[in-house]
């Protein structure tokens, strides 16, 4: 009788990483929905007087609150890239090393283009992120930065707090509010594209590999083959 692979439970995603992930996910969903509403508000025919309704103002307020959540989560994640475990550390994200490039080629060949593996190497299986994924997250982070800069830049004019005012130079830097809005809108689409691919690939890995890929972002645990774990103590 064939044996099931022996799996060990490994704590991969620490609590701050998970908090970041879900705060980020929630704020992006809220920001995208309210962002679409702001860019193209639906036609509500109403007999109400203007002083009776404030829904556009409320949508914008939600957008701005979610923006602060997004920004706060981003700061938390940057901090944790220095303070966190090796899977959260910024070094784990940098793909431009020999190891990183080799891993990207492996992921492209066998996960994306689905080529059969003749001699599967256990070290090709990533425990945290694979380097293809970290490249996507670096891109995502850059788009997030564009969102923060253009968003606070557009907001700064009406802001009373110093933080958004720090970004007041951004719209003129990119050539006016037209371009700032365009960048803001286009970056949102890129983030949506990355999320579509991200969600699919999580489900893909979870389903094909059965290592707890999806649940790891709730529990923090992934399941790793025994051969990858040194067991000196037991």
């Amino acid at each position, binding site marked *: *009788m*064939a*044996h*099931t692979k022996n799996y060990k439970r490994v704590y991969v995603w620490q609590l701050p990483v998970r908090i970041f992930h879900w705060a980020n996910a929630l704020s992006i969903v809220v920001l995208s929905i309210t962002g679409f509403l702001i*860019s*193209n*508000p639906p*036609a*509500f*025919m*109403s007999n*109400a007087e*203007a*002083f*009776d*309704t*404030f*829904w*556009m*103002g409320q*949508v*914008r307020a939600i957008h701005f609150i979610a923006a602060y959540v997004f920004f706060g989560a981003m700061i938390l994640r940057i901090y944790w890239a220095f303070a966190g475990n090796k899977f959260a550390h910024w070094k784990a994200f940098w793909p431009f090393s020999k190891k990183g490039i080799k891993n990207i080629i492996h992921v492209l060949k066998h996960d*994306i283009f*689905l*080529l*059969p593996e003749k001699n599967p190497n256990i070290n090709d299986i990533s425990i945290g992120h694979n380097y293809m994924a970290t490249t996507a997250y670096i891109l995502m982070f850059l788009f997030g930065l564009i969102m923060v800069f253009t968003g606070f830049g557009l907001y700064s*004019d*009406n802001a009373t707090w110093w933080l958004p005012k720090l970004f007041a*130079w951004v719209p*003129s*830097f990119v*050539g*006016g*509010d*037209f371009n700032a*809005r*365009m960048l803001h*809108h*286009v970056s949102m*689409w890129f983030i*949506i*594209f990355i999320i*579509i*691919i991200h969600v*699919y690939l999580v489900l*893909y890995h979870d389903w*094909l590999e*059965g290592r707890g890929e999806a649940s790891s972002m709730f529990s923090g645990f992934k399941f790793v083959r025994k051969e990858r774990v040194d067991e000196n103590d037991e």
Partner: protein
Amino acid sequence: MATQKKRDTYLQAIIKQGYSRRDFMKFTTYMAAYMGLQNSAIGQITEALETTPRLPVIWEHYQECTCCSESFIRSDHPIVADIILDKISLDYTETLMAAAGEQAEAAKHDTMKKYHGEYILCVEGSIPTKDDGNYCCIAGKTAIQHFKEAAEGAKAIIAWGSCASNGCVQSAAPNPTGATPIHKFVHNKPLIRVPGCPPIGEVMAGVIVHVVAFGKLPELDRMNRPKAFYAKRVHDSCYRRAYYDAGLFAENFDDENAKKGYCLYKVGCKGPMTYNSCGTIKWNNGVSYPIQSGHGCIGCSEDDFWDNGPLYERLTALPGFGIESTADSVGKAVAGALAVGIGVHAIAGTIAKRKDVKRRVTKGQENEEHLKDE
């Protein structure tokens, strides 16, 4: 004008012109109000205009429609126009000077020599750079030559209107004449950009009066625009803003909502991206401004407003994807393509990895059968 031996002060010139001192005081009060200054500044402006000799000004016209000058001479208080056109000893301006031909050129060169380093150079219009600047020639010289000559001895340079500030319509893609805003040519001189097509007359007067009264440029923003007039979006000073916040929008120019005066955001109003004073100073002696007259702002004081998509639609065009493509239409297409790609990949993955999946499922089922009963 340029032949005057001793320059009058502003007050002297205004009195000579037949205005009373009361008119003069009204004018300084107006100007302080337009510039957003406090009461005490009225005295400063008054004193400056009483004692300062008139500022020599050369006003050049290049690629433009003269709407800036037109806006000027229609500004609110009569002295507002007069101060610019007469009182500041405007030594050269193609549109309004009496002299012509060689006489006019001589007057200009006279001023440039006599007041070297003192005069203000006002520029209306952009400068064509393609084909050696052939597309705008005055008195046998190109606009580039004229500008470089005049800029050399100028104390400060004012770019009137969108042509001089950002190129306006003639620099819209494909920009056949290579129309270029003047700040691309100015590197070592104080420069004020006063965009708008045209700028508001009172704004233009306010800028000049500030230079005269305080002897320095007004406070400028990062794009060299005077903060007093370009610090707020039209949207933020719009009287229809309440409808925006309430989510009450005109869907068409002839629907019921448009008649009720609802926000014009969805019919392409560019007020939310446009920095100008239209909502507060307004036009034609404060009678109205575009939005008040039922038409959205077209963003005429913003860079490249002609190339930023249709004037009557909300979404701006996505550069490189053609006029009809908005970020949303391209985004939806890409998201759709991704969904199709994912579908194909999911099916291909199922087939390619079927052995792995089957093995895991089989083993999992075996394990399930061997569960120990309690």
